């Protein structure tokens, strides 16, 4: 999973924020456009593209795109180990 792809996927869930506004350090909750609907779109995107079910309670712990990416990677790691063990 490439971080650059993740940033693009993340940015695609916004309608009015310029793509150049998104980077690893972006504190996404501070964006003018941010709302619960962006959060839902991001959770859906993560579910569909990365096959990881991330709950709002988990997402709450991430403030930057980097933190969300790290969380996703940790979940992917868990999924992989479960898969290997199974």
């Amino acid at each position: 999973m490439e971080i650059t792809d993740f940033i693009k996927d993340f940015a695609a869930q916004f309608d009015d924020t310029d793509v150049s506004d998104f980077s690893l350090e972006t504190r996404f909750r501070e964006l003018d456009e941010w709302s619960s609907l962006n959060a839902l779109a991001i959770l859906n995107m993560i579910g569909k593209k990365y096959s990881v079910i991330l709950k709002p309670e988990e997402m709450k712990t991430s403030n930057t795109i980097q933190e969300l990416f790290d969380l996703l990677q940790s979940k992917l790691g868990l999924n992989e180990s479960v898969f290997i063990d199974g």
Partner: protein
Amino acid sequence: MNLTEFDNKAAKYGLKVRLVEEKDAKKILELRTNTSLSLHLHATDSSIDKQIQYIKDYKIKEQSGVEFYFAFMVTDSFDPIGFYRVHSIDYKNKTFCIGSWIFERTSLESIPILADILSKEFGFEQLNLDTCFFDVRRDNKKVMKYHKLFSPIFINEDLEQNNYFYLQKSDFLHNKEILLKNLI
């Protein structure tokens, strides 16, 4: 209207609900005149007296069971964080309308969506209605995308940038289960 059943459902989603009172006028006005929150909503008069009068008029409709204006709170608080209106209830044709959905930014982003689902459950399940009508401004892309997750039927559009839809109970019940998997 006995809201006990509705409030019990809300508790499962970490929310509390009650009907709007005159004391909510200030908070409703605060949210509806917040430009970033109300960008795509119908314009609201910024007079507190008019808001109070609006609530007084609403309470008459509430008494006759044709409209319910909900205030939502998180379970450990008595301060509303958002509002939602189920209105134009037609028991004969088993239809209702939704609107006035506005929430402050919360730390847990699923809350406004759960309130939307709860309010639709109220119409479809508690009131046992079959069809929900709503309109969305065409430029409100995010809300449009969100509503489309429930597979509503497009009716028409007007010259004032509004698109009109209806949502059937079966589609709501099916799609809310998919959505809830991501939310709770």
